[in-house]
Protein backbone atom coordinates (compact mmCIF):
# COMPACT_ATOMS: atom_id res chain seq x y z
CA UNK A 1 0.00 0.00 0.00
CA UNK A 2 1.35 3.45 -0.80
CA UNK A 3 1.90 5.83 2.06
CA UNK A 4 2.50 9.51 2.59
CA UNK A 5 3.74 11.60 5.52
CA UNK A 6 2.26 14.09 7.96
CA UNK A 7 2.56 16.97 5.45
CA UNK A 8 -0.34 15.37 3.59
CA UNK A 9 -2.63 15.72 6.61
CA UNK A 10 -2.15 19.46 7.04
CA UNK A 11 -5.40 20.26 5.26
CA UNK A 12 -7.56 17.47 6.67
CA UNK A 13 -6.57 18.32 10.25
CA UNK A 14 -6.78 22.09 9.76
CA UNK A 15 -10.53 21.48 9.45
CA UNK A 16 -10.60 20.56 13.15
CA UNK A 17 -7.50 21.98 14.83
CA UNK A 18 -6.46 25.61 14.95
CA UNK A 19 -2.72 24.91 14.82
CA UNK A 20 -0.50 23.71 11.98
CA UNK A 21 -0.02 20.01 12.64
CA UNK A 22 3.05 19.61 10.42
CA UNK A 23 5.29 21.50 12.86
CA UNK A 24 3.55 20.27 16.03
CA UNK A 25 5.75 17.81 17.91
CA UNK A 26 4.14 14.56 19.03
CA UNK A 27 5.52 12.21 21.70
CA UNK A 28 4.94 8.56 20.83
CA UNK A 29 3.75 6.51 23.75
CA UNK A 30 5.12 3.37 22.11
CA UNK A 31 8.80 4.34 22.07
CA UNK A 32 8.90 7.81 23.59
CA UNK A 33 10.32 9.45 20.45
CA UNK A 34 9.36 13.06 19.79
CA UNK A 35 9.03 14.17 16.19
CA UNK A 36 7.36 16.80 14.11
CA UNK A 37 4.05 15.43 12.89
CA UNK A 38 5.26 16.02 9.30
CA UNK A 39 7.76 13.18 9.84
CA UNK A 40 5.06 10.63 10.73
CA UNK A 41 4.06 7.96 8.19
CA UNK A 42 0.49 8.25 6.94
CA UNK A 43 -1.61 5.47 5.41
CA UNK A 44 -4.86 6.46 3.76
CA UNK A 45 -7.64 4.21 2.58
CA UNK A 46 -11.35 4.67 1.93
CA UNK A 47 -11.92 3.48 5.51
CA UNK A 48 -9.80 6.23 7.01
CA UNK A 49 -6.32 7.46 7.79
CA UNK A 50 -3.76 5.89 10.13
CA UNK A 51 -0.72 7.84 11.32
CA UNK A 52 2.29 5.80 12.46
CA UNK A 53 5.41 6.70 14.46
CA UNK A 54 8.42 7.05 12.12
CA UNK A 55 10.66 5.46 14.76
CA UNK A 56 8.69 2.40 15.97
CA UNK A 57 5.64 2.10 13.69
CA UNK A 58 3.24 2.41 16.64
CA UNK A 59 -0.15 3.89 15.67
CA UNK A 60 -0.10 7.53 16.76
CA UNK A 61 -3.42 8.77 15.45
CA UNK A 62 -6.42 7.90 13.31
CA UNK A 63 -8.91 9.95 11.32
CA UNK A 64 -12.22 8.60 10.06
CA UNK A 65 -14.60 10.83 8.15
CA UNK A 66 -18.17 10.07 7.22
CA UNK A 67 -20.67 12.60 5.94
CA UNK A 68 -20.84 15.52 8.33
CA UNK A 69 -18.85 13.81 11.12
CA UNK A 70 -15.22 12.98 11.78
CA UNK A 71 -13.61 10.83 14.44
CA UNK A 72 -10.16 11.95 15.46
CA UNK A 73 -8.12 9.61 17.68
CA UNK A 74 -4.75 10.31 19.26
CA UNK A 75 -4.45 7.01 21.11
CA UNK A 76 -0.71 6.64 20.57
CA UNK A 77 0.34 10.21 21.42
CA UNK A 78 1.12 11.08 25.02
CA UNK A 79 1.65 14.82 24.37
CA UNK A 80 1.66 17.32 21.54
CA UNK A 81 3.88 20.40 21.66
CA UNK A 82 2.34 23.29 19.78
CA UNK A 83 4.11 26.56 19.14
CA UNK A 84 2.04 29.65 20.00
CA UNK A 85 1.76 32.53 17.59
Amino acid sequence: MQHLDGNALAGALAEFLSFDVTTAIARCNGCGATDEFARAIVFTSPAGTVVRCPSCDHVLATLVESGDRAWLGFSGVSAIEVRRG
Partner: protein
Amino acid sequence: MIGRPSVPRSGWHPATVVANTPETTSAARLELEVEGWPGNAAGQHLDVRLTAPDGYTATRSYSIASSGPATGDVTRVVLAVDRVPDGEVSPFLVDVARAGDRVEVHGPLGAFFVWQPAAASAAAAGSGESDAAGGPVPSAPRPVQLIAGGSGVVPFVAMAQAHADADDATPFRLLYSVRTPADVFFAPEFERLVSASAPFRLDLVYTREAPAGWPMAPARITREALAEAVLPASDAPLVYVCGSTGFVERVASWLIELGHDARAIRTERFGGT
Protein backbone atom coordinates in the same frame (compact mmCIF):
# COMPACT_ATOMS: atom_id res chain seq x y z
CA MET B 1 16.63 29.70 11.14
CA ILE B 2 13.84 28.03 9.27
CA GLY B 3 12.68 26.13 12.34
CA ARG B 4 9.07 27.16 12.66
CA PRO B 5 8.26 29.96 10.30
CA SER B 6 5.11 31.85 10.96
CA VAL B 7 2.78 31.40 8.04
CA PRO B 8 -0.65 32.81 7.23
CA ARG B 9 -3.69 30.98 8.61
CA SER B 10 -5.30 28.43 6.35
CA GLY B 11 -8.87 28.53 5.12
CA TRP B 12 -11.07 27.53 2.16
CA HIS B 13 -11.10 29.90 -0.79
CA PRO B 14 -12.99 29.98 -4.08
CA ALA B 15 -10.58 29.95 -7.02
CA THR B 16 -10.77 30.40 -10.78
CA VAL B 17 -8.45 28.73 -13.26
CA VAL B 18 -6.94 31.53 -15.35
CA ALA B 19 -4.47 29.48 -17.39
CA ASN B 20 -3.65 25.86 -18.06
CA THR B 21 -0.51 25.39 -20.16
CA PRO B 22 1.63 22.31 -20.88
CA GLU B 23 4.61 22.16 -18.52
CA THR B 24 6.17 18.85 -19.62
CA THR B 25 5.00 15.94 -21.77
CA SER B 26 2.81 14.75 -18.88
CA ALA B 27 2.24 17.81 -16.71
CA ALA B 28 0.42 21.14 -16.81
CA ARG B 29 1.05 24.48 -15.17
CA LEU B 30 -2.14 25.85 -13.64
CA GLU B 31 -2.55 29.45 -12.67
CA LEU B 32 -5.36 30.14 -10.25
CA GLU B 33 -6.87 33.37 -9.03
CA VAL B 34 -7.73 32.72 -5.42
CA GLU B 35 -10.18 34.96 -3.62
CA GLY B 36 -9.01 36.08 -0.20
CA TRP B 37 -5.72 34.18 -0.44
CA PRO B 38 -3.64 35.31 2.56
CA GLY B 39 -0.28 34.76 0.82
CA ASN B 40 2.04 31.83 1.39
CA ALA B 41 5.62 30.96 2.27
CA ALA B 42 7.85 29.12 -0.21
CA GLY B 43 7.36 25.36 0.06
CA GLN B 44 3.77 25.33 1.31
CA HIS B 45 0.99 23.41 -0.40
CA LEU B 46 -2.77 23.67 -0.74
CA ASP B 47 -5.61 21.21 -1.12
CA VAL B 48 -7.75 21.41 -4.27
CA ARG B 49 -11.37 20.28 -3.95
CA LEU B 50 -13.39 19.39 -7.03
CA THR B 51 -17.14 19.02 -6.75
CA ALA B 52 -19.13 17.03 -9.32
CA PRO B 53 -22.66 18.13 -10.31
CA ASP B 54 -24.06 15.35 -8.07
CA GLY B 55 -22.18 16.75 -5.08
CA TYR B 56 -19.41 14.12 -5.03
CA THR B 57 -16.11 15.71 -3.99
CA ALA B 58 -12.46 14.76 -4.43
CA THR B 59 -9.61 16.54 -2.64
CA ARG B 60 -5.87 16.33 -3.41
CA SER B 61 -2.79 18.21 -2.23
CA TYR B 62 -0.60 20.31 -4.59
CA SER B 63 2.55 22.22 -3.79
CA ILE B 64 2.60 25.91 -4.63
CA ALA B 65 5.24 27.02 -7.13
CA SER B 66 4.78 30.68 -6.18
CA SER B 67 5.14 32.50 -2.87
CA GLY B 68 4.71 35.90 -1.34
CA PRO B 69 2.23 38.04 0.54
CA ALA B 70 -1.39 38.52 -0.43
CA THR B 71 -1.89 40.89 -3.36
CA GLY B 72 -5.24 42.55 -2.81
CA ASP B 73 -8.54 40.66 -2.75
CA VAL B 74 -7.47 38.11 -5.35
CA THR B 75 -4.04 36.52 -5.58
CA ARG B 76 -2.44 34.57 -8.41
CA VAL B 77 -1.17 31.14 -7.30
CA VAL B 78 0.82 28.79 -9.55
CA LEU B 79 0.64 24.98 -9.41
CA ALA B 80 2.17 22.28 -11.59
CA VAL B 81 0.35 18.97 -11.81
CA ASP B 82 1.71 15.75 -13.25
CA ARG B 83 -0.81 13.36 -14.79
CA VAL B 84 -1.08 10.05 -12.90
CA PRO B 85 -2.64 7.72 -15.49
CA ASP B 86 -5.99 6.42 -14.22
CA GLY B 87 -5.90 8.94 -11.39
CA GLU B 88 -9.10 10.57 -10.25
CA VAL B 89 -8.03 14.21 -9.97
CA SER B 90 -4.76 14.81 -11.83
CA PRO B 91 -6.02 13.88 -15.35
CA PHE B 92 -8.86 16.34 -14.85
CA LEU B 93 -6.52 19.14 -13.78
CA VAL B 94 -4.00 18.44 -16.57
CA ASP B 95 -6.28 17.62 -19.51
CA VAL B 96 -9.72 19.05 -18.80
CA ALA B 97 -9.47 22.13 -16.57
CA ARG B 98 -9.49 25.34 -18.53
CA ALA B 99 -9.63 29.09 -18.00
CA GLY B 100 -12.82 30.07 -16.22
CA ASP B 101 -13.29 26.80 -14.34
CA ARG B 102 -13.99 27.16 -10.64
CA VAL B 103 -12.44 25.01 -7.92
CA GLU B 104 -12.00 25.41 -4.18
CA VAL B 105 -8.62 25.55 -2.50
CA HIS B 106 -7.71 25.10 1.16
CA GLY B 107 -4.50 26.71 2.29
CA PRO B 108 -1.83 27.73 2.65
CA LEU B 109 -0.88 24.48 4.40
CA GLY B 110 2.13 23.21 6.31
CA ALA B 111 4.92 25.21 7.93
CA PHE B 112 7.30 22.23 8.07
CA PHE B 113 8.37 22.04 4.42
CA VAL B 114 9.14 25.74 4.13
CA TRP B 115 12.24 27.82 3.48
CA GLN B 116 12.36 31.54 4.23
CA PRO B 117 15.09 34.03 3.27
CA ALA B 118 17.58 35.02 5.99
CA ALA B 119 15.90 38.41 6.49
CA ALA B 120 12.60 36.74 7.35
CA SER B 121 14.17 34.09 9.56
CA ALA B 122 16.34 36.70 11.32
CA ALA B 123 13.11 38.48 12.29
CA ALA B 124 11.81 35.16 13.61
CA ALA B 125 15.13 34.62 15.45
CA GLY B 126 14.69 37.98 17.16
CA SER B 127 11.46 36.70 18.65
CA GLY B 128 13.18 33.69 20.22
CA GLU B 129 13.07 31.26 17.31
CA SER B 130 15.19 28.13 17.58
CA ASP B 131 16.21 25.63 14.93
CA ALA B 132 14.65 22.24 14.24
CA ALA B 133 16.85 20.53 16.84
CA GLY B 134 15.68 23.04 19.46
CA GLY B 135 19.14 24.62 19.68
CA PRO B 136 20.03 28.29 19.44
CA VAL B 137 19.85 29.92 16.03
CA PRO B 138 23.25 29.92 14.32
CA SER B 139 24.28 33.32 13.01
CA ALA B 140 25.49 32.20 9.56
CA PRO B 141 22.70 30.66 7.47
CA ARG B 142 23.21 26.97 6.78
CA PRO B 143 23.61 26.06 3.12
CA VAL B 144 20.55 24.48 1.56
CA GLN B 145 20.47 21.31 -0.52
CA LEU B 146 17.24 20.61 -2.38
CA ILE B 147 16.65 17.16 -3.91
CA ALA B 148 13.68 16.58 -6.22
CA GLY B 149 12.28 13.73 -8.25
CA GLY B 150 9.86 14.69 -11.05
CA SER B 151 7.00 16.91 -9.87
CA GLY B 152 8.69 17.02 -6.43
CA VAL B 153 10.49 20.10 -7.75
CA VAL B 154 7.37 22.28 -7.43
CA PRO B 155 7.99 23.52 -3.84
CA PHE B 156 11.66 24.06 -4.74
CA VAL B 157 11.00 26.48 -7.59
CA ALA B 158 9.15 28.61 -5.01
CA MET B 159 12.08 28.35 -2.57
CA ALA B 160 14.71 29.15 -5.23
CA GLN B 161 12.63 32.08 -6.48
CA ALA B 162 12.21 33.45 -2.92
CA HIS B 163 15.97 33.06 -2.45
CA ALA B 164 16.67 35.00 -5.66
CA ASP B 165 14.03 37.68 -4.98
CA ALA B 166 15.58 38.33 -1.55
CA ASP B 167 19.08 38.25 -3.09
CA ASP B 168 19.83 35.92 -0.18
CA ALA B 169 23.47 34.88 0.25
CA THR B 170 22.69 31.36 1.52
CA PRO B 171 24.30 28.81 -0.83
CA PHE B 172 21.50 26.89 -2.58
CA ARG B 173 21.85 23.71 -4.59
CA LEU B 174 19.19 21.66 -6.34
CA LEU B 175 19.67 18.07 -7.43
CA TYR B 176 16.83 17.28 -9.81
CA SER B 177 16.07 13.80 -11.13
CA VAL B 178 13.93 13.66 -14.29
CA ARG B 179 13.17 11.03 -16.88
CA THR B 180 14.09 13.00 -20.04
CA PRO B 181 14.94 16.59 -21.01
CA ALA B 182 11.26 17.10 -21.92
CA ASP B 183 10.26 16.27 -18.33
CA VAL B 184 12.01 19.22 -16.68
CA PHE B 185 9.48 21.40 -14.86
CA PHE B 186 10.04 25.18 -14.80
CA ALA B 187 12.98 24.96 -17.24
CA PRO B 188 12.99 28.68 -18.20
CA GLU B 189 12.63 29.72 -14.55
CA PHE B 190 15.58 27.55 -13.50
CA GLU B 191 17.68 28.92 -16.35
CA ARG B 192 17.10 32.42 -14.98
CA LEU B 193 17.66 31.35 -11.37
CA VAL B 194 21.03 29.80 -12.20
CA SER B 195 22.29 33.13 -13.52
CA ALA B 196 20.69 35.31 -10.81
CA SER B 197 23.05 36.87 -8.27
CA ALA B 198 21.84 34.76 -5.33
CA PRO B 199 24.04 31.63 -5.28
CA PHE B 200 22.04 28.80 -6.89
CA ARG B 201 23.32 25.69 -8.61
CA LEU B 202 21.25 23.13 -10.51
CA ASP B 203 22.42 19.55 -11.05
CA LEU B 204 20.20 17.49 -13.36
CA VAL B 205 20.12 13.71 -13.39
CA TYR B 206 18.37 12.05 -16.36
CA THR B 207 16.97 8.63 -15.67
CA ARG B 208 15.73 7.51 -19.14
CA GLU B 209 17.11 9.81 -21.82
CA ALA B 210 19.80 12.49 -21.59
CA PRO B 211 20.42 15.41 -23.97
CA ALA B 212 22.95 14.82 -26.77
CA GLY B 213 26.50 15.06 -25.47
CA TRP B 214 25.49 14.79 -21.80
CA PRO B 215 28.47 13.40 -19.84
CA MET B 216 26.45 10.80 -17.90
CA ALA B 217 24.49 7.87 -19.36
CA PRO B 218 20.84 8.02 -18.26
CA ALA B 219 20.37 6.02 -15.07
CA ARG B 220 18.38 6.08 -11.90
CA ILE B 221 20.18 7.98 -9.18
CA THR B 222 22.46 5.88 -6.98
CA ARG B 223 23.94 6.49 -3.56
CA GLU B 224 27.30 7.21 -5.20
CA ALA B 225 25.79 9.72 -7.66
CA LEU B 226 23.96 11.35 -4.77
CA ALA B 227 27.17 11.61 -2.73
CA GLU B 228 28.85 13.42 -5.63
CA ALA B 229 26.07 15.88 -6.37
CA VAL B 230 24.98 17.04 -2.92
CA LEU B 231 26.65 19.26 -0.34
CA PRO B 232 28.70 17.04 1.99
CA ALA B 233 27.49 16.29 5.50
CA SER B 234 30.53 18.23 6.79
CA ASP B 235 28.94 21.46 5.44
CA ALA B 236 25.93 20.74 7.72
CA PRO B 237 23.38 21.68 5.03
CA LEU B 238 19.65 21.78 5.56
CA VAL B 239 18.36 19.17 3.12
CA TYR B 240 14.89 19.11 1.60
CA VAL B 241 13.76 16.03 -0.32
CA CYS B 242 10.53 15.89 -2.33
CA GLY B 243 8.99 13.57 -4.88
CA SER B 244 7.29 10.20 -5.04
CA THR B 245 7.27 8.24 -1.79
CA GLY B 246 9.76 5.70 -3.18
CA PHE B 247 12.20 8.38 -4.37
CA VAL B 248 12.04 10.31 -1.10
CA GLU B 249 12.65 7.23 1.04
CA ARG B 250 15.57 5.97 -1.06
CA VAL B 251 17.26 9.37 -1.02
CA ALA B 252 16.62 10.00 2.69
CA SER B 253 18.10 6.66 3.73
CA TRP B 254 21.21 7.29 1.58
CA LEU B 255 21.63 10.75 3.10
CA ILE B 256 21.66 9.19 6.57
CA GLU B 257 24.22 6.61 5.39
CA LEU B 258 26.32 9.49 4.01
CA GLY B 259 26.44 11.03 7.47
CA HIS B 260 23.75 13.72 7.23
CA ASP B 261 21.95 14.56 10.46
CA ALA B 262 18.41 13.13 10.35
CA ARG B 263 17.13 16.32 12.06
CA ALA B 264 18.50 18.43 9.20
CA ILE B 265 16.64 16.44 6.53
CA ARG B 266 13.06 17.44 5.71
CA THR B 267 11.01 15.23 3.46
CA GLU B 268 7.68 15.52 1.66
CA ARG B 269 6.16 12.41 0.07
CA PHE B 270 3.82 12.89 -2.90
CA GLY B 271 2.61 9.26 -3.03
CA GLY B 272 3.25 6.59 -5.64
CA THR B 273 6.17 4.20 -5.46
